[in-house]
């Protein structure tokens, strides 16, 4: 006689699950464990459920009016099935037991598996003790503590009024804010059972100034995770000063003359250079498709000996900080490169299964419609030993990239970045402002040309788009020197 604790599949239609609809908690263990047991009984090696609920709002102030407030509520789930190294992912908006069973069935059929028949026994799935990061850190109160709609509008209007007193030749001034509250639950047949709440907020300026044919558009954004009072504490006056100053400098700037130059890249968002030129190429999703020149370079010199770089999810309230990744694993502080030597890759569950590299708590996704993939968190070049003065005085003629725009890298390691604010360096001094620059190059070459790093590491929020959607990340670095890089211009 089979043990009475094992569930017969023919009992399924009569089971009722009273999982808490407004919250992901331990009551979800029973239905998810049953479904995962079904999946395992069907022949899957691993079954993982990802449940998500979000409460999102964005608000836009243009000149002296709030022109848009958009609240958005979403709910959804996805199931991922692994069979050997193959996997598939199915998502839905229907979080009822029937809805989740339907996507499980679909996922199983895609891999050529089917739900067990009437008398089959469904193995018990032993989930770990519920890891509720939201409860541990009292995050359940966060949503109610964030700025209500009225306050959001007040702050943005005050910020816009402030920049109007500082910038000249304004054609358009905008202040925009978003708050993204997300509750997630991850359950997997290897025992993972964890919940978290994430609160990500960002606010910033977009300023357009024109004077005849002269135009300058400058943006600045700040962001935070985990601080409900973020917007109330936004020091918009300082940001307004900075944006106005930059716009003033760039309004009459000459276009950069293209060529190959030594370049000093500012700290903070200058870190996008490492993010694009190297970070993506260390994700196991690139290794799986042989789309990185670093695939077999672990333990080898891939960068200048003065370069050390990290990827981590632990820094307090940074944009890429998480208490658990989207596969339920706590994040780590991962040493990527140490004095030029490649030490570790950025690894999610699938990357570990397919490449053997150890997981780093880096499985991330934009939302429930994506399976997780190996993605960056807070990624930065570590501070070095040089002073700013030493870096600048080492350059006779070069470019100072004070503010970077976005960038990208392709599968053969060619990267590019836009530069929003640049200056000519002449005889070690910053001279005239320049605009219209794009930096291009080859990832392997550039990593060996970062020869000097200063001591002033700073981080900046960013948005990274890749195979599992757009996620919140941090980039960062100290001021650094690139010995030579191609600057595209006119």
């Amino acid at each position, binding site marked *: 006689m089979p043990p009475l604790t094992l569930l017969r599949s023919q009992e399924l239609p009569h089971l009722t699950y009273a999982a808490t609809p407004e919250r992901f908690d331990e009551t979800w263990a029973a239905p998810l464990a049953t479904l995962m047991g079904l999946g395992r009984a069907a022949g899957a090696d691993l079954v993982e459920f990802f449940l998500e609920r979000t409460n999102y709002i964005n608000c836009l102030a243009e000149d002296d009016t709030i022109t848009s407030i958009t609240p958005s*509520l979403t709910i959804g789930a996805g199931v991922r099935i692994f069979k050997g190294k*193959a996997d*598939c992912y199915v998502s839905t908006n229907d979080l009822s037991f029937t809805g989740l069973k339907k996507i499980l069935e679909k996922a199983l059929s895609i891999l050529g598996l089917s739900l067990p028949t009437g008398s089959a026994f469904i193995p018990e799935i032993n989930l770990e003790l519920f890891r509720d990061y939201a409860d541990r850190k009292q995050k359940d109160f966060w949503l109610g503590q964030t700025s209500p*709609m009225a306050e959001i509008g007040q702050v943005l209007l005050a910020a816009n009024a402030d920049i109007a007193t500082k910038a000249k030749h304004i054609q358009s001034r905008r202040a925009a804010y978003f708050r993204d509250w997300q509750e997630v639950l991850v359950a997997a047949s290897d025992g993972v059972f964890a919940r978290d709440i994430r609160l990500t907020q960002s606010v910033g300026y977009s300023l357009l100034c024109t004077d005849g044919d002269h135009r300058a558009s400058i943006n600045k954004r700040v962001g935070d995770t985990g601080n409900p009072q973020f917007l109330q504490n936004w020091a918009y006056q300082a940001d307004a000063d900075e944006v106005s100053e930059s716009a003033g400098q760039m309004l009459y700037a000459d276009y950069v003359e293209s060529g190959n130059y030594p370049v000093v890249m500012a700290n903070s968002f200058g870190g996008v250079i490492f993010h694009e030129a190297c970070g993506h190429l260390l994700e196991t999703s690139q290794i799986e498709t042989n789309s990185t020149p670093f695939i077999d370079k672990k333990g080898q010199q891939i960068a200048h000996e003065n370069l050390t770089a990290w990827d981590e999810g632990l820094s307090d309230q940074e944009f890429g900080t998480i208490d658990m990744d989207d596969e339920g694993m706590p994040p780590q502080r991962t040493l990527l490169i140490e004095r030029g030597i490649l030490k570790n890759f950025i690894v999610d569950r699938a990357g570990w299964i397919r490449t053997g590299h150890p997981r780093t708590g880096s499985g991330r996704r934009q939302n429930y419609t994506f399976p997780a993939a190996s993605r960056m968190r807070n990624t930065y070049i570590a501070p070095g030993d040089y002073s700013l003065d030493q870096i600048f005085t080492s350059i006779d003629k070069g470019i100072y990239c004070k503010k970077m725009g976005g960038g990208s890298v392709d599968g053969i390691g060619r990267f*590019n970045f836009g530069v929003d604010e640049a200056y000519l360096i002449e005889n070690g001094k910053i001279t005239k402002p320049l605009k*219209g620059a794009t930096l291009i190059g*080859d990832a392997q070459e550039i990593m060996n040309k970062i020869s000097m790093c200063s001591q002033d590491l700073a981080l900046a929020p960013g948005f990274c788009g890749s195979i599992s959607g757009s996620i919140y990340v941090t980039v960062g670095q100290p001021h650094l020197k690139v010995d030579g890089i191609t600057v*595209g211009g006119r």
Partner: protein
Amino acid sequence: MPDVKQLTDLTHTQAKELGISKFDLYGSITDSNSVRVYQGEPKQIKASQRASVIVRVWNQDQQVGVATTTDLTESGLQTALQTARDASNFGIRENAPDFSPEAQAPLGDFVEEVAPQAPVGILIERLLEAEKELLSAHPAIADVPHNGLSQSDVERFYINSDGASRAQSNSYSMVYLYAKAEEPGRKPRESGAYKIGRSLESLDIAGCLQEAAEKVVSHLNYARVTSGKYPVVFSPEAFLNIVGAFANIWNAQNILDNQSLSTAESLGQAIASPLLSLCDDPRHPANLGADVFDEEGTPTRRIDIIKQGVLNSFLHSSVTAKRLGATPTGNGNIGAKVSVSPHFYHIYPSTPPSSTLSLEKAENVILIDDLHALHAGVKSLQGSFSLPFDGWLLKGGERVSVESATIAGDFRELLKTITYIDAQVKETPNGVSPHVWVESLAITGN
């Protein structure tokens, strides 16, 4: 998953119970499958059935609030309507949106083409075959790291409390194949192609494969390019991309927001060479994802944006049309602030060219195949661009692939210095365009 009729009835019922007398709703339901493969094995398989709606609620002061939700249960819709009603207290009073005056106008003839979805196993089979054929197309093709085959059924709908009711269903299938080619002692090169079809059966996978193979192999013969100014020819795909990046020039909402290179008085000005004409043509037969109504319910139509170099019309929502004394053009996107976007560009020569320029005879001309990093290298509010590209230097009847370079310039100047537009246009998934020749642009070689 509720169907459109059920959602409509539920929304009307819920609104009545909540005492909401004026509302509208736009939504979509999507059922899709996609597969990727790698070296003869399935790599990622995804399937989803998703629905999302955005509701707008007007309060008694005619202020509007919105809310978006994916929770289409009775309670989910109720929450969305309540949230939108609460948000309406913060809605703008001046130039507040209203229903489109054309939300119940006839849509004209259109055909809904919904093809049955093929089983996922068939998608995997077809993509594996394509990968195999691409790998055997040329000895240098080493890998097909980026590929995908997908199929989607999309149902979109619009309703309002005045009785407007729109619905449209479409299905389409897409394939993309990006191959990596390598020769000993040389850098790897990557290029590819993508196609869209109504169904898996009508999808030109073979054509995509051939184009991807030809392109990546043509980049094997690469060399550095000397920096300087060159005459440039844009491929249809590249020209559509750069035109799309500067769409603020004819976007009425951008103009009203002072976020445009144009002003409301720009209509009638010569902004491009007289050789160029450009329209937004959502109902073009090549536009497989054609929307017959926009998100405000306004019927879509062909709009002549540039005629013989002259800015002829802006693209409008019902909001911008009202403010600028124009007719809605069916380009509205619903939201707390209605936005405007194009559907499907159709670029063509204003008059057939009197003589023909040939790529085969071009000398010291850069042919741009693909532009990259538009999100970073375009300053759309300044008119400038500086973009990495894939392309060739045309010299002595030969094409030499450009190893790594950028192209930079001012878009307004580019439009005015168009020297030739091919008579033959190419239909792409993103629009229709010919090759476009420009007098000169700055090229920086790596």
